[in-house]
């Protein structure tokens, strides 16, 4: 089970029978926790089997002034089958040029801190990032690494709050509480549309329970007739007024990536 938001963020899937019928309010347990869990499971289930993805990412940072700054990177993701562990991802930085060639390898875990290594091309060495608390901003953006790292089903407890219209669709609104330690958030509120079980919006609440950020998923596309990915992830920090847009410029699925492409030792050979 897996799904790396950098590459996904969402469930994918086709109307393969299961989903549509599954979500009939009466069929769900009355208990809000069970109901929330069921929706999240459906979201997770619909993305199973995507295999691997490759994408090019453009990140646009904007401060309160409206000044912007861009980063470019490639991201490869490998689905790790099974419930026990998270996906693997490799971020290769393209721009700005000072960090071109820098590569970040991550093994997502369910409750333990992710394993991460960074290859520094200038030093020609791989450094392990052994910090336990990596909830800070990713390359100066409004995304924390935990926002874009693997969104694993087992990382949260779920509680169904309500159903409500979201644009032209109807969404189930779930409260998700991180189970892993050292999260920057006390809870997230996530909107899943009930037609395709995609995440449409996430609100992040800080340690004092205040709304910190909102993530919007824009322009969902379907790949391989099954897996849904948003073209743009747009994060607004309500407390600082800063914003970050993540634009996926190209997506490729099932490109034949394997375990061997996600090893510490292969980082140096990436160029």
């Amino acid at each position, binding site marked *: 089970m897996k799904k790396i938001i950098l590459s996904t963020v969402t469930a994918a899937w086709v109307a393969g029978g299961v989903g549509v019928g599954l979500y009939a309010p009466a069929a769900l347990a009355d208990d809000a926790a069970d109901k929330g869990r069921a929706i999240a499971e459906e979201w997770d289930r619909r993305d199973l089997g995507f295999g691997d993805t490759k994408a090019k990412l453009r990140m646009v*940072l*904007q*401060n*309160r*002034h409206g*000044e*912007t*700054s861009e980063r470019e990177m490639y991201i490869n993701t490998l689905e790790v089958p099974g419930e026990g562990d998270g996906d693997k991802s490799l971020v290769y*930085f393209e721009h*700005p*040029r*000072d*960090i071109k060639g*820098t590569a*970040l390898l991550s093994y997502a875990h369910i409750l333990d801190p992710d394993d*991460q290594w*960074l290859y*520094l*091309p*200038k*030093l020609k*060495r*791989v*450094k*392990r*990032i*052994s*910090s*336990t*608390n*990596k*909830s*800070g*901003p*990713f*390359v*100066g953006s409004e995304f*924390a*690494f935990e926002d874009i790292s693997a969104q694993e089903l087992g990382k949260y407890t779920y509680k169904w709050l309500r159903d409500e219209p979201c644009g032209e669709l109807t969404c189930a609104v779930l409260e998700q509480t991180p189970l892993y330690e*050292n*999260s*920057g*958030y006390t809870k997230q509120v996530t909107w899943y549309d009930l037609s395709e079980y995609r995440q449409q919006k996430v609100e992040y609440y*800080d*340690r*004092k329970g*205040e709304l910190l950020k909102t993530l919007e998923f824009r322009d969902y596309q379907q790949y391989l007739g099954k897996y849904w990915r948003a073209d743009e992830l747009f994060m607004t920090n*309500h*407390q*600082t007024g*800063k914003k970050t847009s993540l634009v996926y410029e190209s997506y490729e699925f099932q490109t034949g990536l394997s375990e061997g492409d996600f090893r510490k030792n292969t980082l140096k050979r990436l160029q």
Partner: protein
Amino acid sequence: MDHRRKGLAVRYAQWVIRWRWLVLIASIAAVFAAAAGAPRLGFTNDYQVFFSDENPELNAFQALENVYTKTDTILIAVKPKDDSEKVFTPDTLEVIKGLTEESWKVPFAIRVDSLTNFQHTEAIGDDLTVADLVVDPAGMDAAALKKAEEVAVSEPALVNRLVAADGYTAGVLITLHMPGEDPMEVTQAVSHAEELVGAVRTANPDLNFAIAGIAPLSNSFPVASQTDMETLIPLMWLVLFVSMIVLLRVVTGKIGSSVLASVVMTLTVIMSAAVAMGMAGWGGIKLTPPSATAPNIILTIAIADCIHILITMYSQMRRGMNKHDALVESLRVNVSPVFLTSLTTVIGFMSLNFSDSPPFADLGNISAVGVAAAWALSMTLLPALMAILPAWVAPAVEGKMTAMDRFGDFVVNQRRKLLLSTTVIILAILAFIPTIELDDRFIEYFDHSYQIRVDTEFVTDNLTGPDILEMSVPSAGEGGISEPEYLRNLEMFANWFRTQPGVMHVNSFTDVMKRLNKSMHGDDESWYRLPNDRELAAQYLLLYELSLPYGLDLNSQINIDKSATRLSVTMESLSTTEMRALKERSEQWLVDNAPEYMQTQASGAVIMFAYISDRNIRSMLTGTVLAFLAISASLAIALKSVRLGLISIIPNLVPAGIAFGIWGMSVGVVGLAASVITATSLGLIVDATVHIMSKYNRARKEHGYDAADAIRYSFSTVGLALWVATAILVAGFAVLALSGFRLNWEMGLLTALAIAAAIVVDFLLLPPLLMLFDRSRKTNDSAARAEPVPAE
């Protein structure tokens, strides 16, 4: 007085008496309508209200806050009561760690920095470990405590900022980002922090705590406004009470009358203030400590208005006139001068709109409305009430030479000596004006009766300074902050700052880079230096940023395209002059030593206040000149004499100069209040000049007196009323001198000094001047013509 106008004033007075009940009810209704806005009044708690939207220092600072993060902070200092105990004990560290974690819950907190959550980097093999400096205080043995202390006191980012160099005091710094939608935001944040500290203090009686920072300071403004209103307004009642006693003693001779007159005066002045505060509420004005003094100022001026009308009425009654006739006569002779003195006072207050500091513009507008209301009420409510209420007087004692008559003789006889001696004394006093030093230390606006002042001084004595100068130092372009040339120059600049007197701490991005370089080389001390390769530095930085936890990122120190970093310099309390010198020296250092692209300007709250007086004096210059021209012109028109208008310039201008001269001799230092004194006092001191000169003019024109006799006449008729009115004004403004808020007591004391100086100048210098320059005027040609400004 010409017949048409005389007829108008008399007809008006008779109309008021006839329709007294209607006038009474209508004026009370109008007062209630205006005063109904008062509940809308609020108190501001944003220190930035002292700066106009156009203020360049404010704009520079806001631009910096937009690029990085806001700098509203709360600093909680912790120090063991036992002076020989450091903070590096398991118990104290546990308290600091607990405070740090709880501080995240302070409303609007976006960042919390402390000794315990400092992100310490360590190299272990090929790993870069970034972790809290203190994770588990209870489990720390002596060696671990020793190590933590060594790291802390040798870490430039911490020492003298979050931990004292001697290790005896530590701090928790909360950075706030308030949306600015609700004025209660600051209060919510500060109250939460205070409750938190209160609970921790109770649980740890062996520790001292102090709360400082910009946010608690801002939050002290509404406290100061309310404290002033609660303490100074009751004192004003004392002034009012004393004024009534004087009235009783001087005017009526009957207890019953003075009690009723007191009631009438009290009603009139309260209603004047209520109208002004109500209108301020309708106008959406948020009170600041300066504008919160408006009720006091209005009460003072309104009393003076009432006094003039009541004195005339009672003195006419004592000469045998019945009450209604006396009231008509009082209005007849007072309509014009009370209008003219109110007008000049309003002009003086309105000129505060030129101030670059909005609280003073608010003060000016509220006071102007109050003065106008006092005038209107003394023309409606006051006579209507007097017409309704009974009045008794004792008959006047005729033919007795009064003190004022003797004083008039003295001044006429000694005019040459007086002219010479007063001129010499005034010049001597004026010579002290240049010795005045302008100083606006923000924290010192509050005296020691405010906790914020006490706590800030505790923090300054034990941990870190109260003032922070901020600079955004640009590099050559995107990513340029990793360029060795930039880092080298930035480090030299930071080191230069560290050698400057008064600088306690410099937070520089170069310290992050040096620490990182060391950690990337197995924590080898010899690598505690700047990386000499741009890409390498950028890649270290990326690695470091990926390792940081929520809230402790570098976004507050580096801009988004990594083309500039923020340099924060903490200083002990420096005088405004020293502060400005440091700012200018630092900018010059960059010009002389750094590449052109690194040049920038310093900003920060302390910089804004360092220039506030200067900027306001400059902006008020136009306002003061305009007020002065308008007031002199109204005088010349009212007296129908350009010559008298010109002579009036001296007694109108000199008193403010004397006030500043005496200030230079005695106190020496003055702040923002100085910029507004000349304009506001002008509108008040001109009143005495108006009364003396119009009496003098009437004596010359109507009675054909020569200059000397005209002086005697004006002393005799208006002298006592002027001394009484001046005494009330001086006392009213002197009450403000008891404020614990520096701007208020400076403003009160300086204005009181100027008004006191004015009465002395009007009685000792003005008469000799009139006798000197107005000697040759023919008096008979205009004798038949009435003059528009009666006195009394």
